[in-house]
């Protein structure tokens, strides 16, 4: 009984405009791919439920505007994230170089415990590749992150990437979650008791109390 809870995490997609963040999200949640690029202006989110270790993990994935001029605002969303995807486009050397900047922003604005994962998207574009897989691996190693090359177009590694980050976040928060769950449970029972005064007679106790947790 004590383990029966749902968990909700916020994951954030970061990276230059055009690297495919919106497409990754769309592929993951709706299993769809829309080739047109309408740059995200603002922040958008979608929900997805995964089952990890028997725990239903609901993840809320935030897709942000990549453009420079919105970054002062989008940075404010970092602190609510438990996990961050740093996305570049393997056909764009520039987007790969910018990962450094994104990573340092994350260090500055996101919570210390935030989990990160490096994603090289558009792996299907073999002919236009500018960033070698080894470069991605190296960078990820330097940052101590996991690394995936993905394609929103062919659905390559999409579920794997999202699941991996969710697993990492779950692992990183496991202790807190267990503690929190216990404390909230207590809180609830307490509140229930206080409010229940005077009602006790009409409600046939035990049976019902059980269902609030």
């Amino acid at each position, binding site marked *: 009984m004590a383990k029966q809870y749902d968990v909700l995490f916020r994951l954030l997609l970061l990276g230059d405009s055009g690297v495919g963040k919106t497409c990754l999200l769309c592929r993951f949640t709706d299993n769809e791919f829309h080739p047109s690029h309408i740059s995200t202006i603002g922040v958008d989110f979608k929900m997805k439920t995964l089952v990890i270790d028997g725990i239903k993990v609901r993840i809320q994935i935030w897709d942000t505007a990549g453009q420079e001029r919105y970054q002062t605002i989008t940075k*404010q969303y970092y602190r609510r994230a438990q996990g961050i995807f740093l996305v570049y486009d393997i056909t764009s050397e520039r987007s790969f170089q910018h990962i450094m900047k994104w990573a340092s922003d994350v260090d500055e604005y996101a919570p210390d415990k935030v989990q990160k994962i490096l994603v090289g998207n558009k792996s299907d574009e073999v002919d236009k590749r500018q960033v070698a897989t080894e470069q991605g691996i190296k960078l990820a190693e330097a940052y101590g992150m996991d690394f995936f090359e993905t394609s929103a177009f062919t659905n390559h590694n999409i579920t794997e990437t999202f699941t991996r980050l969710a697993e990492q976040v779950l692992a990183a928060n496991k202790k807190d979650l267990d503690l929190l769950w216990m404390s909230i449970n207590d809180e609830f029972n307490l509140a229930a008791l206080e409010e229940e005064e005077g009602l006790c007679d009409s409600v046939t106790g035990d049976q019902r109390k059980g269902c609030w947790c």
Partner: protein
Amino acid sequence: MDQSVAIQETLEKEENCITAVQCDILFDKITESRLLGLVESAKEHAIFIYTHRRMAITADDVSLEDIIPVSLDFAIVEVSSPEELAVVGADTRVRVSYRDEELELRLPFGSNSRLFLSEVNRAWSEVCKSPIQKPKFEWINKYTNAIRGHGVVKQTIAPLGIRNIKLNQHLETEKSLDKKGDLERENGSNSGTQKSRVYSSVESRGIPNRDDRDDLVRSSSHTPSNKAQILTMPQFGLRDNLIRCELLKNEELYTYLENYSFFLGTYNVNGQTPKESLRPWLSCTLDPPDIYCVGFQELDLSKEAFFFNDTPKELEWMQAVSEALHPDAKYALVKLVRLVGIMLIFYVKKEHAEFISDVEAETVGTGIMGRMGNKGAVAIRFRFHHSDICVVNSHLAAHIEEYERRNQDYKDICSRLQFRQLDPTQPPFTIMKHNVVLWIGDLNYRISDLDVDDVKELISKKDFETLHSFDQLKRQIDKEAVFDGFVEGEIHFQPTYKYDTGSDMWDTSEKCRVPAWCDRILWKGKNIKQKHYQSHMALKTSDHKPVSSVLVIGIKRINGETYKKTFEEIVRNIDKMENECIPSVTLSKREFDFKDVKFMQHQAETLSLFNDGQVPCQFEFIQKPNESTYCKPWLTANPPKGFIAQGGSVDIELEVFVNCSTAPELNLGKQQIEEILVLHLERGKDYFISVTGNYLPSCYGTSIHLLCQLREPIQDMPQETLRELAEMSGDENAENSEKPLDIPKELWMMVDHLFRNAVKQEDIFQQPGLRSELAEIMDCLDTGIPDSLPGSNHSVAEALLLFLDALPEPVVPYCFYQQCLESCSSASQCERVISMLPQCHQNVFNYLAAFLRELLKNSASNRLDVNILATTFASLLLRSPTKQDFAEKRKTREFFQHFLTQGSS
């Protein structure tokens, strides 16, 4: 306050309002309070929705508006919101749907709401769990006729239900056939409830607490509440229930049937001990059965057994059974349950043991005083693969005339026998909640309306069919008085009661009982075939003969792969549903560019929001960090927040207006017309709207000091030069190539114009100018085109006043203000203060005073007097750095008066 009492008063006797809660229903545009009651009748539940007058105390205070049956077409889910996640103390939002209709509710935080939701949930999961009993909801009809046509539940566009889940579609046809008995309900047009309420009620929709929302861009510390954001509690398990319900409905997709043979045996042993092998009874089949369920009655008739439920015979008979099981297979004893003399033993073939789970046993006594264990039932439930099976062994009331008592015993057993559930949030399992119910025992029904001899005659002719038509059980079942829905196979064996013990002779005692089929085997459920149904004459220990039956039952087994697929599909669909319910709008434009923005000149553009989402939404422009407002002061969005119905749209005016307080920084280029607005949808996304533009600098809002250094019109100056000059202005000694002007040329142009044209102008400085002319005058001052000032005298006069008003530092600088007040009574003192002003300010002051004195000389024609001018100008020349009170005002007037009367004194 328990409002269920008021609801109860509106109901019929056998209907019961379990719990009630007051909540808000969220309509497209408005929120209204309703009272909800969960009403139960004959194990069926429905949510009754009432409008109510106040805190409802009696039936007069409530009026029934609609009813939502808690059926398989019912669903309830929590509407989660990114901002409100797991905030302890937050209201709960739920979406209730029935068929294609839905309703969004907001329940206040508290145990009352929790209780209500958990009860609804319990009722709902019960429905989901009873695949063999479809609710009929006939009791609701009388209400629905009355409310027909003005229900509150609206037709949904995105039905939350289950209907749009594709994998379900092939079941649809079958389902609609089943629904004939269901309540038919016209869904009322909702016009009745939308009423003519006005838009203004947006305020009352309870826009979530600012703090919660601002968290979006603010909160950073790692407080516990911050952590709490990552946890959602399955507060009411609504989502889980939806998944469970969907899984159940789609069972056909991931299960397949496999046949297993169940051996059922019942034997009333009349208190005897086993004296002979039970093999002729238990091993009568060719192949070993997969499962044995063996029941006994009257195991022990002693007082000890009756009072202490203790008997050595339990073991004896169990051993006798174990020894008599089919020799060709190995069996494991799973469970034994006994109530006094009623015992049930459950064995399974060893290889199936691992697929048996959730085994529970219960007993119910219906004997002496309706409670004692001399009569009653024992039952074992278990799950075999994916089927829930319940086996009941009962010994019902005796005596030929007591058949109604037997019917009653059956009903009591059904209602009182409950298996506990491991998960306490789930309602207890009753007998009828199982996929398969096997009912065996000494049911004690007799043969009516025939003499002993007639009975024996029919038996000897083996005319069991005729005899059966006099069987009480058959008759009671035909009358639907008992064992509703149960099936019994044809009886091809002679009555099993009553024999002389140790023989096959009919009862020869005094009582000379009429032979009867007391011992029976019945079943309820799908995919069950009877292989045999017989009695076993060879056994002679008791005055009854044992009966056996082999049933071949199609057991549901799960195909792991398709189960996983189905589960994922369901979760995906729920996610999708949820994603579709995220509020969303399209914006007519993301970027707004305002060209050539001028001082005091209003510019506006329209931003249209179209609600393209599946739900109504609430929008608001929200603050960014470290900013106290949602945008810069020169920009406004009108309206800054509001509500858009689904499919509706709203026009928002983005207005740019530069006034005296915002002009100074824009003039110097310290600020630009540049802003990003964050448009936030409650429970939804954020949109960024960028506002850009260019501002044309103006002498309005530019300091006297700086203007004195400008020999050219301000708009001819590059912005950097302006900024440089402004930065130097603090430094009096700064090396300046050119001698500054005595007074700003713009001031001179206006005063000179008035001096030459308007000294005799009636009501000068009293009458307002024209807006359009004012704009032309400002343009002229800022661009130098045309050469001379356009417009009427009144317009120029107003332009002058506005110029003084817009000065970032007034003519008498703020730091001298206090001194002025203190010296206001003495003319010489006042003059001393003025002599201390920075040179250019002093020049402007004296220049204006001289001009005004000149005007006063012509007071006969322009009708001005000292008082009027002192009042008008003092407030512009001497501005308080803080707020001015009335006394101060008087003093500033007194101060300035000295300078207006100077010449004449």
